């Protein structure tokens, strides 16, 4: 038993070191992207461009909404992402459009921007072509005469200053709006569950679903010229890349962006492939490498997932066992410790991950901290239960032999509690494997990444590519711990 325990500790430590190396090489350029396909394509363009200019580049895909990306940029978690001028004015700076935008960003925030890429992806409202015909709708102002129409808007649009609030007051619209996922809104509109939705004018689905775009006749929506924003220090770290990025200005007209979006969303091509073809068309040959095979992708995700689970679990064990011992030693402290780890455990995973972003930023570390916090309860509780469950006469016998408190703990109490402690570690490990899939939401990678992308692209195969290995890993972890018990 004791040898098995030692062996396990050695294995966990070794594993941790091997896996940590996965995070070790600090990428010199980190590209971020928002949750929608166009953002991911532009992120992929920047990533390929950085790589072709000699930088180690990594793309943290679909990290979140505007706030998450902007804060990640200011914190240095990412170096560059694609943004829209309208969003900068309305949502981030909350000022009126001015030609001084670039100077303001540079001087007060340390952020640089490229010139406009060439397309204006502004908001628009859309209805089914058939309802446009039947109701005689051609402009947004026509909507006020039809209060019965059901509005389904993307969640961000409902909340943004430049979104629904502005629109409603400008056009005096009587309708209520329901918040929903943008991709689901298209399906809802086609199915007739909603009648009006917000659109991005470069969305490929507009043509695909035969949607009539209503004219913004009161000129309410600002201009959303696509640009890249990047940290000012990138110009010294990767000057060639920054020059190349600036040179993209004016090379993506609206028709091209619509067709790139269609290639990914409708035709099912990868963002990387589409980005590569675009760069080739403007004379930049990039070596995107071979498209990773499904197996290679799973292997990469597995490694990321194991790093998240392994490191968080390792530190949880390191902290929880002493905490459990302390709780067992002193009942009054025990109540506090068990209460605290219990409360931590009840925080919803999504909320905990969201709390981590302002504290630690994005990527692996905040996800590991969240997983670490979740792992505390099962291990602390089982250590406590194991120690307090030892028969009093055994504990008395150990003391009567003249052993010190530490000797008694080491030679008698911990070995007697080992089964309970190992069961706690097993519970924590299995829970971690499942919860770690949420890490993808804050850019930690792992099996959650294909699930997230699969939801965006409505691709069940991709969703399973994350879900099946996650389930198998959970079973494997459970199995490993069960085998150990028979030795």
């Amino acid at each position: 038993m004791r040898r098995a325990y030692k062996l396990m500790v050695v294995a966990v430590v070794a594993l941790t070191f091997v896996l940590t190396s996965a995070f070790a090489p600090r990428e010199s350029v980190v590209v971020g992207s928002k949750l929608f396909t166009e953002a991911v394509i532009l992120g992929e363009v920047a990533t390929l461009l950085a790589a072709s200019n000699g930088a180690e580049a990594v793309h943290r895909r679909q990290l979140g909404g505007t706030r998450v990306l902007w804060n990640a940029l200011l914190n240095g978690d990412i170096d560059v992402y694609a943004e829209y001028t309208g969003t900068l004015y309305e949502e981030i700076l909350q000022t009126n459009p001015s030609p001084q935008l670039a100077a303001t960003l540079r001087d007060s925030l340390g952020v640089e921007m490229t010139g406009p890429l060439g397309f204006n992806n502004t908001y628009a409202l859309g209805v089914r072509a058939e309802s446009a015909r039947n109701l005689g709708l051609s402009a947004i102002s026509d909507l006020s005469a039809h209060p019965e129409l059901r509005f389904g808007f993307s969640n961000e649009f409902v909340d943004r200053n430049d979104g629904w609030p502005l629109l409603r007051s400008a056009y005096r619209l009587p309708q209520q709006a329901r918040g929903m996922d943008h991709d689901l809104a298209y399906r809802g509109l086609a199915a007739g569950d909603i009648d009006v939705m917000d659109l991005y004018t470069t969305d490929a689905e507009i043509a695909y679903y035969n949607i009539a775009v209503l004219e913004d006749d009161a000129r309410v929506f600002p201009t959303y010229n696509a640009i890249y924003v990047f940290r000012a220090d990138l110009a010294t770290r990767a000057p060639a890349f920054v020059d190349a990025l600036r040179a993209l200005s004016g090379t993506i007209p609206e028709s091209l962006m619509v067709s790139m979006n269609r290639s990914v969303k409708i035709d099912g091509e990868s963002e990387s492939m589409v980005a590569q073809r675009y760069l080739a068309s403007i004379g930049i040959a990039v070596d995107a490498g071979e498209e990773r095979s499904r197996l290679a992708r799973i292997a990469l995700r597995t490694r990321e997932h194991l790093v998240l689970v392994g490191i968080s679990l390792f530190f949880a064990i390191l902290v929880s066992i002493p905490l459990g011992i302390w709780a067992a030693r002193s009942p009054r402290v025990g109540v506090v410790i068990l209460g605290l780890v219990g409360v931590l455990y009840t925080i919803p995973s999504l909320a905990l991950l969201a709390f981590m972003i302002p504290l630690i930023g994005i990527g692996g570390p905040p996800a590991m901290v969240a997983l670490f916090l979740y792992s505390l309860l099962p291990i602390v509780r089982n250590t406590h239960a194991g120690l307090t469950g030892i028969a009093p006469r055994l504990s008395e016998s150990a003391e009567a032999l003249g052993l010190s408190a530490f000797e008694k703990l080491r030679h008698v109490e911990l070995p007697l509690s080992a089964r309970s402690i190992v069961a706690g570690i097993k519970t924590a490990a299995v829970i971690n494997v499942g919860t770690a899939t949420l890490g993808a939401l804050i850019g930690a990678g792992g099996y959650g990444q294909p699930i997230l992308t699969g939801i965006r692209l409505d691709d069940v195969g991709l969703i399973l590519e994350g879900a099946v290995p996650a389930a198998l890993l959970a079973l494997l972890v459970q199995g490993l711990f069960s085998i150990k018990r028979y030795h």
Partner: protein
Amino acid sequence: MLTLSRISKRYDTTVLDGVSLDVAAGDSIAVIGASGCGKSTLLRIVNGLVAPDAGSVHIDGQPMTSDTARKLRRRIGYVVQGGGLFPHLTAAGNVTLAARVFGWPGDKIAKRISELAELVRLTTAQLDRKPDELSGGQNQRVAVMRALMLDPDLLLMDEPLAGLDPMVRASLQRELRELFVRLAKTVVFVTHDLVEADVVADRIALLDSGKIVQQGTLRELVESPATRFVGDFVQAYRVPSVLADR
């Protein structure tokens, strides 16, 4: 060797009320009394596992306090009720645990364990088994071995033979008696069985209502009981017939 002076302890339902007792080196005494009369608590106090509310314990003139307890305990062998063997260790592991922790060299441990195995009649094969693979009587022998390992001056035994079947019990009583005489240990032996007390120890101390009401040999207790309780207690065992057998 062992001196208890006016020990008092209120402890749940158990009450000790001014217990004094002297045990000379090499003597053995059996403390006897009804269940729950505080016999086990008295042993815990001797060993420093429980602090008395009043009174003191001296071992070879040294007071037992929380500061001296750990050092003094290495000179005290203690067999708790039911043996208290550690289920995760083999019999040998149980016996040698303290010696290993205290850094005895391996050859010294091996020599000591073979001496003791012979003394308590256990085989090497039996010593390699875990407590749940041994019989009740064998486990008691292991517990005695563990208590003797560090060659203590004082041996405390708390109902070591409880729960064994009568034949095993009778033979172990005789063996323990021989052991005590041969090793010349000072022994405090707690039991609720008057016959066992007589077989195992030189002297019997009868505990009632938190006080030692009489000390002496079984014959003295039978022939001149100090209180009515002593008379009733002795009666309950039909001791005259036991004495007649000897």
